[in-house]
Structures are given as structure tokens and as C-alpha cells.
């Protein structure tokens, strides 16, 4: 059975800290891994990763995929209170538009 597991499930840090969120997967016919950020509304797209070892970066956020070890990490440096959200990891399978989601990591950044 296809599975996506995120850790930790929740995290509390202070502004300025660096955090690393983890996503491991066991999915047949892997196509891509996606990260979303969800505040109190619709999830918004952050990154899509298809190749191992190539870092994707957007401001203070970066992500990398390891297809051999079947995991991805999302790093956030110099965290701000606006980074407080649920971060969702999802895996897409080949030849289908379906995504398989992990449980999400709830990040709280305190001032």
C-alpha cells in the first residue's frame, strides 16, 4: 500500500530558528514529490521535486529529494511568525494526476 509519512507531526520554534521537516515515502511508480503550505485556508504550492540531489530554493525555504533513500526534507531558515502553518508533503504517481498526502507537520513559530 502506498504511504507518505511526515515527521515531526508538530513543532514549536522561536523566530530566527532553522527548522527541517521530513517526508518519507513508499509509493510505487513514483513521479514527483510536492510540498504545500497550508495556513487557515487552501494549501498553496511550494515545490515540486522529481530528481535526486537537486535543491529547489525559494527565499528562506529549500527542499531536496533523495530517491534512493525515499525521502525529502524541507528547510526553513531564519523562521518568522508568518511561517506558522501546516506543511504538507505529497507524492504523485506516474501516469496519473493523483497525489498521496502525508499527515502534515504543524509548525508554530513564536515571537
Amino acid at each position, binding site marked *: 500500500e502506498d504511504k507518505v509519512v511526515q515527521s515531526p507531526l508538530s513543532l514549536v520554534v522561536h523566530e530566527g530558528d532553522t527548522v527541517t521537516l521530513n517526508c518519507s515515502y513508499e509509493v510505487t511508480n513514483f513521479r514527483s514529490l*510536492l510540498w504545500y503550505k497550508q495556513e487557515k485556508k*487552501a*494549501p498553496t*504550492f511550494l515545490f515540486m521535486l522529481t530528481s535526486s540531489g537537486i535543491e529547489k530554493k525559494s527565499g528562506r525555504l529549500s527542499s531536496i529529494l533523495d530517491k534512493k533513500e525515499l525521502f525529502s526534507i524541507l528547510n526553513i531558515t531564519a523562521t518568522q511568525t508568518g511561517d506558522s502553518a501546516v506543511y504538507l508533503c505529497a507524492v504523485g504517481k506516474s501516469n496519473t*494526476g493523483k*497525489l498521496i*498526502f502525508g499527515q*502534515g507537520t504543524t509548525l508554530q513559530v513564536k515571537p
Partner: protein
Amino acid sequence: DVKVTQSSRYLVKRTGEKVFLECVQDMDHENMFWYRQDPGLGLRLIYFSYDVKMKEKGDIPEGYSVSREKKERFSLILESASTNQTSMYLCASSPTVSEQYFGPGTRLTVT
């Protein structure tokens, strides 16, 4: 910008009522999806559609049906609402095997 809208942000229904949740996207996307989101369980796929009048079951289709008469509109139907269907319902669309764009969600409470 892609826009996905959902008919209601909050909805309260009684057990046994028939419930319609509407989703409209304005980007001519082929694929549309309905998820429910519950604490600790992440997003779970209910139904999806790759084309007009086409539908496929997701992971938890029991108790739900869908309708896609026009490309831009995908409806989720709860034939006889039950309390265990109290949840956040998210609609998404995508152009191909790509990232999905989400609507704001409908928080449904069944009493």
C-alpha cells in the same frame, strides 16, 4: 492566477440530509479532485475526474458521489449526511500530471 472556488466556506446540515458541495475552476484544467481533511489523517482523496462525465473513486468514496457535467465544475454529493462526514472538504484542480491548485475549503458540520 488559477482560481478554484467552493460554494460555501461553512455549512451545517442535519443527519440524513442530502448535501451538495460545488467547486468551480477558471483555468480549463482537465483534472479535478475532492478531498477531505481531518486532524492527524492529512488529505484523503474521495473522488477525482479526468474529464467531463468521467469519474474515478479515490481512497474513501463510501457515502459520497460526484458529478461533472461541465469541465469547470465538479460537485460532491453526500446522499444522506452522517455525523462521521463532519470534516473540511477541499477541492483541487490540475492541468495534467502536475501540481494541484486548491480551493479555500468547506467546513461541513453534520449534527
